[in-house]
């Protein structure tokens, strides 16, 4: 990514969706799109790949279930066998509820913390919206001017039909996009 970004601001989600699709069709690099709320279909318009978070969730859940089943078996029938109601020590049904709960717990925590880690969110992090109104009523499409042939006036002409509100060029330091 270069250090020169182009911020295109829109007022309507439909305009943003159409503009995003068009920009992608022309092969410009989309850095990100900022919206006040989740816009349906934006992931497809941006060409985002399917989230891998589901795999994190599934694997954490499996670790929770299988790990707890193993642990219960180890506790209940290897290291400290206790006779409960005359049941065999390695009784699977008695181990299922806790295994289920720990699967849910690990899947939940795993997904949340994986999401926070990947998005680099942590308590006390300062918010730096690209523009203030993106948290209220503006939709911002951020493009990368990496391409040597990137012509701002041409891009502007392309975006104008989508009721472009504002076009801003911004130079960012290597540290972040803002």
């Amino acid at each position, binding site marked *: 990514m270069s250090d020169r970004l182009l911020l295109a601001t829109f007022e309507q989600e439909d305009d943003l969706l159409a503009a995003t699709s068009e920009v992608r069709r022309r092969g410009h690099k989309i850095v990100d799109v900022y919206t006040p709320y989740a816009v*349906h*279909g934006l992931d497809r318009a941006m060409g985002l790949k399917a989230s891998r978070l589901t795999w994190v969730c599934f694997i954490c859940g499996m670790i929770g279930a299988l790990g707890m089943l193993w642990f219960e078996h180890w506790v209940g029938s290897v290291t400290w066998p206790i006779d409960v*109601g*005359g049941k065999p020590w390695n009784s699977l*049904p008695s181990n299922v509820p806790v295994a289920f709960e720990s699967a849910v717990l690990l899947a939940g925590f795993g997904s949340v913390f994986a999401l926070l880690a990947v998005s680099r969110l942590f308590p006390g992090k300062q918010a730096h919206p690209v523009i203030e109104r993106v948290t209220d009523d503006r939709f911002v499409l951020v493009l990368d001017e990496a391409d040597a042939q990137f012509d701002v006036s041409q891009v502007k002409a392309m975006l104008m039909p989508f009721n472009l509100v504002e076009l801003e060029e911004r130079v960012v330091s290597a540290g972040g996009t803002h």
Partner: protein
Amino acid sequence: MTPESLSSPTIYRQLTKLAIVGAFVLAIGALVAPERTWSNLLLVGFYLVTLGLGGALFISLNNVCGASWNICFRRIPEAFSGLLVPTGLALLGVLALRYQQYGWHHHGEGDAGTFWFKELWATPSSWMIRSVAYVVVWILLSRALVAVSRRQDKSGGVGLSILSRRLSAIFLIAYAITFSLASYDWILLLEPMWFSTIWGVYNFAGMVQATLAAMIVLTIFLRKRGPLRNVVTDEHLHDLGKLLLGFSCFWMYIWFSQYMLIWYTNIPEETFYYMARTQGSWGPLMVVNIVLNWVVPFFVLLPRPSKRNETIMVRIAFVVLIGRWVDLYLMIFPSTVGGSPLFGFLEIAGMALLIGVFGRLFFQSFAKAPPVPTGDPLLSESLHYHC
């Protein structure tokens, strides 16, 4: 393709033939093995009635929530609820045919404390009166729901949406009470000395699961070959898949809740139900039940792409529909026929009857109204649904 051409003579004739052949084999079976034939009829009747009831339940739940995603294919569950009149009456006939099958509470048996109530509850007359009452309540309320929806096609307007929401709320309350009691009266009472307070929920879970599976099959069929082409999208399919996945897990949860408490406490008056169902060849069948109803749907439907894939969804729906049959088989047959699990001509005939009657009644009912509820104000929202 219009609904008229869908109810084309070929589909009709084949489904009718299937039902007639099934009924014919069962009629012969009634002479040879009356108990087993009756058990098959009870299974098929209960299966069909719960599919019809499930359709009305699906509409009501969505109406009460103010949901819009389901509207574009709402005529499918509406056609399901059309099953209730013929199959409900047929099931009542089956019940009346062999009411003595239900081992009535004989004097001096069971817990002394609650005995008087059980005796009163389980007399053939009060049992039959209740059975008729359940079916009548379901028929009246579901017909009202469908009638309001069809009237909206002509008149449109929000007023009728509000009316069906109110009707739905009434249906849900009536359903919760009557279906729970009906599942006790018609299935659990085959083992009058056994008890399970979670029985109603367990039957509810299986019912919704099977209804969703049948709806998925028909939604995909009508999208590929019929009037719902370009109406039902992958988004709707995805949500149906999510619901099926959820209810498979719910069924497993309830199944296990019932099993584990009885296994843990290990009291003979409760365990005999599972003893009969885990010994001999019944044991593997219990495992098959869990595999079909939970293991397969859970692991296959978990990834997002498989819920948006027609082929996978239809296959899983069929697995669940077979699983529902096995589940009901395990509830009914060890109590009535006993011995070893039997699968022969009579069971196949029962399945043929099930498929034939269901398909025939469904297409007949579906053809009676426009395939999409055009008068519903939320229809366009439903058509543009994105999940």
